[in-house]
């Protein structure tokens, strides 16, 4: 029971952090509940499909199927997050103005919502596939699901969901005028972390072999398999022994994100407001 609880909690916790951030980012936008719920549902369905086909998936790309698949969906999530931040840099001001004027959003922010729903789906798919594989494996070994396993998994799910709720409510305590800046920053680091994870999978598959030396080792300080280490890994991509290539990709993602946000920022000089 404890094993089921721990593994389910760990994975739901990781997906929950991301969902909590997305909920805070989209706070007040009409229809966001449906989008996020749709993302979760798609992720769960995808997780089951991936879990069923893990054996076959591993065989692809000369035994590197899992790595290529993970790198692919993580890269896609990075692109979606980048797109979202750039979109918000351009339209965030209009959005905020309308939010204040109408009291609630009537904006067609659905484009950006769709990008974030995809991110939610990918997060749930990745963590969910591990949960499904693990629970299914344990159930198969026992010759059927047991109440202790279902109970443990259920408790893990509830505790993990509380993390999601806490993340969301915590972010909402940030005053509205700072919230946009905080969430944009969170999303930029989230994207950089995911990009570094994606490249790590390509390095593991020996598809990318350049700059593969470990740059530092902070596992004595904070192991990335500890509780806090895992949280920071999910949020900002903390790794206790990063490779040079991971650092390059991490930095490049942040730089590209910031440059794109600046380039496509809403031109403020066009509407001089003289009081």
């Amino acid at each position, binding site marked *: 029971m404890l094993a089921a609880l721990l593994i389910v909690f760990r994975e739901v916790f990781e997906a929950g952090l991301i969902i909590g951030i997305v909920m805070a980012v989209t706070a007040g936008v009409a229809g966001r509940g449906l989008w996020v719920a749709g993302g979760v549902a798609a992720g769960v369905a995808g997780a089951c499909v991936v879990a069923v086909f893990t054996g076959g998936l591993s065989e692809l790309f000369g035994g590197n199927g*899992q790595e290529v698949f993970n790198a692919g969906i993580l890269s896609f999530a990075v692109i979606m997050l*980048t797109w979202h931040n750039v979109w918000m840099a351009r339209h965030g001001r209009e959005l905020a103005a309308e939010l204040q004027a109408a009291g609630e959003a009537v904006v067609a922010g659905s484009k950006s919502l769709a990008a974030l729903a995809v991110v939610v789906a990918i997060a749930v798919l990745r963590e969910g596939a*591990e949960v499904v594989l693990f629970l299914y494996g344990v159930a198969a070994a026992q010759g059927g699901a047991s109440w202790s396993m279902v109970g443990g998994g259920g408790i893990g799910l509830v505790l993990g969901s509380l993390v999601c709720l806490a993340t969301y409510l915590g972010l909402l305590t940030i005053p509205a005028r700072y919230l946009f800046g905080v969430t944009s920053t969170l999303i930029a680091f989230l994207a950089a972390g995911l990009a570094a994870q994606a490249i790590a999978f390509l390095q*593991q598959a*020996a598809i*990318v072999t350049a700059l593969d030396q470990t740059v530092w080792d902070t*596992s004595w300080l904070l*192991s990335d398999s500890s509780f806090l280490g895992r949280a920071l890994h999910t949020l900002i991509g903390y790794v206790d022994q990063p490779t040079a290539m991971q650092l390059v990709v991490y930095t490049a993602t942040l730089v590209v994100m910031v440059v794109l946000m600046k380039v496509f920022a809403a031109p403020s000089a066009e509407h001089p407001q003289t009081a």
Partner: protein
Amino acid sequence: MSRASPSTIAVCAAAALFAAAAIAGAQVARAEDPVNLSVTIKDYKFEPAELHAPPGKPIAIHVKNLNTIPSEFESSDLHFEKIVPVGSEAVVRVRPLQPGRYTFFDDFHRATQGTLVVP
């Protein structure tokens, strides 16, 4: 400028970044054949629990899961994590290593631990 164009460019730029990174890496292709090591997971133990490899050579670890539950074969020291379903075999690649002791484990069952020793 149309509304769609900034976002389109953003997507293209992000995609280009990944392509560039991938190409940069691919330039240094697998020049050397890896040293092949084998390990089995059975009764929640690695067999053998200690692997040996020469320094400075790329390594491929072949892991076979003969346990009753799936395994997530993982190592922070060696930078890999891979799910190995029951009864199947997987390969993880490890970059050339400095002398030292490197631990690996089953992330679905943390008590299952092993060591790779490079003299």
